[in-house]
């Protein structure tokens, strides 16, 4: 009974914590610009994420080590600095996009311009990290994040043509704006396969003292939680396609996305959209700030734990504080949040090999995972999807920059 409860809670929190500004913005842009044609990118990203999340939980449960700690032990400090620096900088950029999303949600509700909300949002996140425990942050934010299920309700109420939606599950060539199509596809994959989630997940498993008996639970939670989470992104894409395409609206700014639920739910649609965006972004901010702190502290062998008092883990607390301040500065200077979001998601795709290749090597090293090493299916799937995302990113990012 306890295991069933554990699995249910794990799945529910995975669903609630899945959607964030990156997946929301990229799915909405894809739906508005290309109808159902890019559903395949969400599916590929989700499949890859299922494998990666399961792997990071398995690594922690079997080796009792976090992903960052295991990488440092396996490859040594000089090599470890590469993913550390890259992922930390990327983390700040993604955190800025999440803070931008939270600030925009507050702007939608209050009418006060979003840069004013950035310092307050960052402070609220910092206060929760400072005072809260891992369990409160992980489960609290994720359970509140269940508000994002509103997109699934909206998708059903719009009665989409499911056969056409299913056809979008298979990759197809774009019939117009090919560069934009591939750039959005790359951004979608970057939004789905977020490396920060892996550091957060493995650190959480160690904080919760997982062991080998948790491996099956981890597998079920990762598979079902991420699958249902991916379904939320597909729902966003479907709603955007059915609301914006017939009106000829392409998403260029966040202001436009905010209209996606009002034709279905009226005033409540607007409020629910703002609530979903704000909560999802706030939850993601907490996870990203913690992930950067975990990565740094575990990599350097410092004391770390979200459950410890901040003065006992001073350097760990300092890292998440600096990360939040840096993210807030980017938003305060008024950079367009949608532009930061799309670019940071595409950059995530381009930088995936730096995080994923060492991880795959670890997962095939019997010294760390014993008999629980990767099989050929997980190795092949992850390599293929990460490779595809990398190639598409390397080609489409320069073109998008040149085009804009």
């Amino acid at each position: 009974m306890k295991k069933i409860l554990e699995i249910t809670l794990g799945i529910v929190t995975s669903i609630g914590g899945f959607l964030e500004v990156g997946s929301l913005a990229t799915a909405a842009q894809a739906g508005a610009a290309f109808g159902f044609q890019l559903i395949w990118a969400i599916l590929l990203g989700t499949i890859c994420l299922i494998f990666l999340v399961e792997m990071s939980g398995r690594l922690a449960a079997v080796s009792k080590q976090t992903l960052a700690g295991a990488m440092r032990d396996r490859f040594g400090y000089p090599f470890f600095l590469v993913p550390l620096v890259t992922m930390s900088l990327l983390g700040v950029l993604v955190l800025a996009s999440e803070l931008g999303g939270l600030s925009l949600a507050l702007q939608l509700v209050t009418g006060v311009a979003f840069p004013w909300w950035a310092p307050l949002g960052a402070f609220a996140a910092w206060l929760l990290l400072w005072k809260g425990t891992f369990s409160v942050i992980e489960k609290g934010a994720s359970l509140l994040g269940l508000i994002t299920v509103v997109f699934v309700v909206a998708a059903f109420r719009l009665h989409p043509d499911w056969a056409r939606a299913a056809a979008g599950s298979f990759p197809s060539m774009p019939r117009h704006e090919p560069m934009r199509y591939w750039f959005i596809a790359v951004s979608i994959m970057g939004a789905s396969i977020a490396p920060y989630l892996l550091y957060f997940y493995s650190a959480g498993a160690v904080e919760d003292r997982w062991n080998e008996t948790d491996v099956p639970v981890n597998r079920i939670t990762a598979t079902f939680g991420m699958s249902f989470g991916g379904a939320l992104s597909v729902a966003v894409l479907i709603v955007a396609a059915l609301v914006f395409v017939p009106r000829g609206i392409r998403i260029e700014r966040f202001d436009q996305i905010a209209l996606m639920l009002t034709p279905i739910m009226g005033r409540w649609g607007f409020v629910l959209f703002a609530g979903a965006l704000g909560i999802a972004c706030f939850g993601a901010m907490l996870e990203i700030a913690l992930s950067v702190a975990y990565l740094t502290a575990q990599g350097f062998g410092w004391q770390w734990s979200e459950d410890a008092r901040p003065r006992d883990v001073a350097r760990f607390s300092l890292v998440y504080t600096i990360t939040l301040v840096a993210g807030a500065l980017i938003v305060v200077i008024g950079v367009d949040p949608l532009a930061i979001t799309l670019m940071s998601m595409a950059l995530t795709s381009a930088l995936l090999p730096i995080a994923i290749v060492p991880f795959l090597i670890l997962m095939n090293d019997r010294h760390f995972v014993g008999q629980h090493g990767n099989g050929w299916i997980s190795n092949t799937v992850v390599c293929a999807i990460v490779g595809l995302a990398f190639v598409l990113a390397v080609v489409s990012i320069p073109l998008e920059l040149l085009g804009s």
Partner: protein
Amino acid sequence: MLLRWRVLCAALIVPAIACSGKSVAERIAEHDRVRVSWEQTTRFVGAEWADGAIPDAYAARTLARAGEELRSEDQALGKEKIPDRERARLRESLGAARAFADTLGLAVRARDRETVMRLVKDSPRANADSLLRQAALW
């Protein structure tokens, strides 16, 4: 090893950049898409505001944003190398869309629902069929 990577990246990027040059027709279609998108955003915001589905501040801000976007599109058009006749046509439609956004914005700020409803009703809907055919999405 690094050299191989550079060669591989160049091999991927250079042909892609070479193929990415847009034709005149594509550039004109792109300007039309942007204009239609903001014109219809304006219409959508007006209709939803008149229905009481969105707050005043959001509606006013989004309409002001639509006006700005249409203005910057007009400026971008000035630098574009396209036939003068097409440029004049695009400028005229952009001007009309901008005027629509500005007028709707004034009515929203004055909280004049009747005028907003009338303006939305009289404005052209996006030709959904042609848009869908153009995009060949379904």
